[in-house]
């Protein structure tokens, strides 16, 4: 390439032979150019050498700078760490300061409340010495709240000192309250009115003190009122029923006279109720004493009248002090509790129960008389009917038996019972109805056996009287109007089939025999009272059955054995 290129250059420069004349000057130019180029090459090479040296120096400088930079970075990092540590310290200090502020705030609040408590106790002391009960009550409520705040600091001397002082003030307050109450009733009318207002305020203090103080005050007051009542009214020994009315008049007078005084107390204390309960208990003792000392031949009407008065008195107390509107705002008792707790029913009147025997006996007598009258009337009716319709006698008797049962069931309501005994009669009626039904069922069964044909009389009797004896069966056969020979024939058949049944009957009756004595020994007083009324009804029902049996005999005798004709056409 180079060779070819040089050749071309020469050919280009010297195209013809004539141009060779300038070759010398051209050669000179080329030499000059060569020298210049050599100088340039030399300079460049020299520069390259210098440049290498400088580069090396620069590299060293850069390395030093980098090291210095690295060093500075290390310093900055170190300072950053110091700064961070400082910041941590500051944050820690801030946190401590924050806690300190909270503690100081809590301390200031506690000290402020303590200051308030000290001030409150001082004020209370002044109120106590001046017997300013209303203000003292409000102050006590504030003090109690502030003391609750200091429960955790009870071991501190200052707190202990304050509590001791407060305790003393409370005792003085209590003493003043009880002292003022004891002076009740000793002053003039004007002084009394002022005292009532003062005592009404003192009850607020009592509520602010311990609950035991309230209880003690109420008990003291009730005890004083009862003592006063006994001194004035409970003097001579009472012996007659008439004096029960006197007792109630005295009580009503006492209540009317003192009711204004009783309004001293807050309604929530229920003082009038509690007082009347205790008065009622004392009254019950008095009434019971009168009843116990009564002679046996006492007037039943008068006894019932006094019972009625007693119930009315209890109702009066209940309307005034019982579960009415006056306890509507009671927080402690609910609706159900009110009706159970504030109740005067039976408080006095229940002591009449053991003494109502004469009333029961009187009712029994009247019941017997009514029963005999009804039976006699029925006897005449049946006699007339038998004369007209003798062929249907037994069936008519069944219908009459049903009618009689209806009449017997109406007997309790026939008598005009006093209102006071309505509950008793209602209870007695249930037992009476049960017994009447039982006895009349038996009578109807007897009639059905009498009416049955001879062929089926044994089966009918056995179905209706599974546990009866041959003797009873024979009595029915007699009523049926059979001859002795006919009776004997039927009885022989009856005995042949019923021997096993008789043994079973004897075994079945054994538990009842054991049960009866056990029941009697365990009878409680209340049940014994009930047993008395049941006894009366039992006797009434037995009398009815006996009368009915007499009816059979009367019919047979009057009509010359009509049953024989009825069943032997």
């Amino acid at each position, binding site marked *: 390439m180079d060779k070819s290129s040089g050749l071309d250059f020469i050919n280009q420069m010297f195209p013809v032979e004539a141009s060779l004349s300038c070759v010398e000057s051209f050669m000179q130019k080329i030499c000059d150019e060569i020298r210049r180029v050599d100088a340039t090459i030399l300079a460049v090479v020299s520069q390259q050498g210098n440049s290498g040296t400088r580069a090396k120096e620069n590299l060293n400088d850069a390395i030093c700078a980098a090291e210095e930079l690295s060093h500075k970075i290390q310093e900055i990092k170190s300072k950053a760490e110091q700064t961070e540590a400082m910041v941590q310290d500051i944050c820690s200090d801030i946190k401590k300061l924050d806690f300190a502020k909270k503690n100081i705030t809590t301390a*200031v609040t506690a*000290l402020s409340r303590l200051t308030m*408590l000290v001030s409150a106790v001082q004020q209370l002391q002044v109120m106590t010495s001046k017997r300013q009960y209303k203000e003292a009550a409000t102050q006590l409520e504030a003090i109690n709240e502030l003391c609750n705040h200091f429960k955790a600091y009870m071991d501190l001397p200052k707190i202990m000192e304050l509590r001791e002082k407060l305790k003393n003030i409370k005792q003085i307050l209590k003493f003043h309250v009880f002292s003022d109450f004891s002076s009740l009733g000793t002053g003039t009318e004007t002084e009394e009115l002022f005292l009532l207002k003062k005592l009404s305020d003192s009850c607020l203090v009592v509520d602010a003190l311990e609950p035991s103080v309230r209880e003690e005050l109420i008990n003291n007051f009730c005890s004083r009122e009862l003592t006063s009542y006994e001194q004035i009214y409970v003097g001579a020994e009472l012996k007659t029923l008439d004096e029960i009315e006197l007792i109630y008049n005295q009580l009503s007078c006492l209540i009317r006279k003192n009711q204004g005084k009783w309004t001293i107390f807050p309604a929530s204390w229920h003082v009038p109720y509690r007082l009347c309960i205790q008065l009622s208990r004392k009254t019950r003792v008095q009434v019971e004493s009168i009843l116990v000392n009564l002679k046996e031949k006492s007037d039943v009407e008068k006894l019932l009248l006094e019972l009625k008065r007693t119930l009315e008195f209890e109702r009066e107390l209940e309307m005034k002090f019982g579960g009415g509107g006056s306890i509507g705002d009671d927080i402690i008792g609910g609706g159900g509790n009110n009706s159970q707790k504030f109740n005067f029913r039976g408080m006095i009147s229940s002591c009449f129960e053991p003494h109502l025997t004469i009333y029961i006996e009187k009712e029994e007598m009247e019941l017997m008389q009514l029963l005999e009258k009804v039976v006699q009337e029925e006897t005449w009716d049946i006699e007339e009917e038998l004369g007209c319709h003798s062929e249907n006698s037994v069936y008519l008797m069944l219908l009459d038996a049903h009618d009689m049962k209806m009449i017997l069931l109406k007997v309790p309501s026939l008598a005009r019972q006093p209102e006071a005994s309505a509950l008793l009669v209602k209870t007695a009626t249930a037992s009476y109805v049960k017994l009447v039904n039982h006895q009349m069922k038996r009578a109807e069964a007897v009639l059905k056996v009498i009416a049955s044909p001879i062929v089926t009389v044994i089966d009918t009797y056995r179905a209706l009287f599974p546990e009866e004896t041959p003797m009873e069966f024979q009595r029915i056969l007699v009523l049926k109007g059979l001859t002795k020979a006919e009776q004997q024939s039927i009885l022989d058949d009856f005995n042949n089939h019923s021997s096993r049944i008789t043994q079973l009957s004897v075994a079945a009756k054994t538990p009842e025999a054991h049960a009866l004595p056990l029941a009697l020994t365990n009878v409680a007083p209340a049940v014994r009272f009930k047993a008395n009324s049941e006894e009366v009804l039992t006797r009434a029902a037995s009398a009815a059955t006996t009368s009915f049996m007499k009816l059979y005999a009367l019919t047979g005798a009057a009509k010359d054995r009509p049953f024989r004709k009825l069943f032997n056409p």
Partner: protein
Amino acid sequence: MASVSPLAKFKLVFLGDQSVGKTSIITRFMYDKFDTTYQPTIGIDFLSKTMYLEDRTVRLQLWDTAGQERFRSLIPSYIRDSSVAIVVYDVSNRQTFLNTSKWIEDVHRERGQSNVIIVLVGNKTDLVEKRQVSISEGEDKGKEYGVMFIETSAKENFNIKALFRKIAAALPGVDSYSLATKSDDMVDVNLKTTSNSSQGEQQGGAGGGGGCSC
């Protein structure tokens, strides 16, 4: 070296009937919280907070009083030591509004007619359906007694910051207050029984704890 002026300290006492929201207003301002369960304040409660205003910084001591009637006779000593009285009522309870007259009169009795800032605050504006006191009634009462008036809702965080900015704007400047501040740096808390305990009219003990000096 330039001397550092002392930090201005002001005592604010919160008055008003029970359960109108005194404690709730303070809690919203201090911690931006609202507690839905009501707990009556026992006697007196203390909190402090620093407010950073455009031109200065002030430290507020907040005295939260019990509104229950039983603490009524114990509150005056805290009114006596306060620069600002905030009388709060409940806009849904007319009686609390009517009772603000007594509270304002208590402040005047303890502090005199001048030298005290009183703010009438109608709280619980969130109870729109139950409102019993209108804004105009509150404004009229404010004018009648010559006191500032504002309505708030601690529950909805309405106007709480505005209330305290309003108070801060009304507080005296550093220059006029510096002398008073120095003399009021330390407060003696006296817990001992005074020799005049027989006089019922005298209120025992000093009011308020010392302020934080930091």
